[in-house]
């Protein structure tokens, strides 16, 4: 075997590989988040980011904290399971204002608005005294459980001897709000 004396090529190759490795390490350091892999194969702080989202849909307990009389009115009634938000909106602003008002007496709460026909209305408190509110659950639709109270509006009104024309608030002419009779 002839002796290998052209070592310059080996040094060049070694330097090239070292440079590639160095660049790779720098790139990896820049690209991979610091907390990656501390809890699992993901960015650990993402858990906190997602958990920090605000809770928008208020539980009834939030409303009942102030509106105790309504809680008593609804307790044990068939519509206890209907959420406040279904007829009054998410009322996020209302709750935030009320919390501020509890500490600062100068803060006044505006009255509830008229329902604009959109259940998605996010911020405002509203009162949807509209038959759509009732019928979104109670209109007789194929597929409902047999024991659920179903209403066919035309038949129901005829039974009750109601007169035409129908107003949008027709349900509330007989049925109460919070104390809705069955």
């Amino acid at each position, binding site marked *: 075997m002839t002796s290998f004396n052209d070592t310059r090529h080996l040094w060049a190759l070694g330097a090239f590989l070292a440079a590639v490795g160095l660049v790779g390490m720098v790139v990896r350091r820049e690209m991979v*988040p610091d907390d*990656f892999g501390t*809890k*699992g*194969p*993901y*960015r650990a702080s*993402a*858990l906190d*980011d*997602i*958990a*920090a*989202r*605000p*809770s*928008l*849909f208020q*539980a009834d307990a939030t409303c009942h904290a102030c509106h105790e009389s309504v809680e008593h009115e609804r307790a044990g009634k068939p519509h206890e*399971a*209907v*959420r406040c*938000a*279904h007829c009054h909106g*998410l009322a996020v602003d209302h709750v935030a204002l009320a919390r501020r008002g509890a500490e600062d007496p100068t803060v006044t709460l505006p009255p509830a608005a008229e329902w604009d026909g959109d*259940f*998605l209305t*996010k911020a405002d408190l509203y009162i949807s005294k509209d038959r*759509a509110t009732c*019928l*979104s*659950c*109670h*209109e*007789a*639709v*194929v*597929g*409902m*459980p047999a024991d*659920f109270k179903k209403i066919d509006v035309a038949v129901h009104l005829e039974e009750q001897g109601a007169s035409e024309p129908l107003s949008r608030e027709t349900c509330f002419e007989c049925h109460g709000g919070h104390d809705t009779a069955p």
Partner: protein
Amino acid sequence: MSLFELPILSTLGPAAAGGCASGGCGTGGCGTAPAERTSESSRREFLKTATTLTLGAMSLTLLPGVTAGDDTLPLPPHGGDGHGPAAKPMYGFLIDTTKCIGAGKCLTACRVENAVPDGQSRTWVERYVHYKDGRVEVDLVPETGYAESGEVQPAAEDVLRAYFVPKLCNQCVDAPCNQVCPVHASIKSPEGIELVDTDRCIGCGYCVQACPYGIRFMNHDTGVADKCNWCYHRVMRNEQPACVEACPTGARVFGRVDDPDSEISKRLATVPTNVLKQHLGTLPLTRYVGLTDEVT
């Protein structure tokens, strides 16, 4: 030494044991110098032994009743007859299809809570209508319920039976969507809830294709993957997910399954439940009451 004295190979025959076993090497092709005879023959001995052991081990796996691995499968979450990795989930979701009235309250609540764009949804409610003539039709409950939606309803006299099936993320223990993410933006949280790291997601959409339940979607507003995460932010504050909070009939039950006193634990202990597409082995945590074969 004769290879066929070994009990394992006696069942295989000469062909399986390789050409050398029949003594063919002595006739030609193995022309080695006498000086190297010893090392050459020991190498041949080694090859013979190695081949024998390998084939013998392989033949063992063909025998009935003998498996290479551990055949004691761990129990799936919540019992049942599933298979796969053992898991001790913290949270569970129970859907009672016999209670759903198709009001769509859960849909609105979810959209608002999670800022889901119009036309997309993290959860939906399917209605299965079995007609008396044998047809089965499936449609989606409108977000405001069927009332005044203008949709033509099936005539009640034509319908044999009908029911609503809410769908949401199954939070699979062995989640296919999690496995395909190339940038680790799919997170299986320590609580067992599948999340999307929207900061890391590059919007490639692999996870959308990987989910066998069609739960994931590309959010039109953000351009990255989005999915039901059981309202992780609410759950971390000990609140119920928005859809559960909004349901007026208790068709959606959420809670700690590691707490035997929670409502969901009691329900799971008393009511027979199913999961969707159990044959896929994804081990869903969302369980259903009253699931029929038509629902997939």
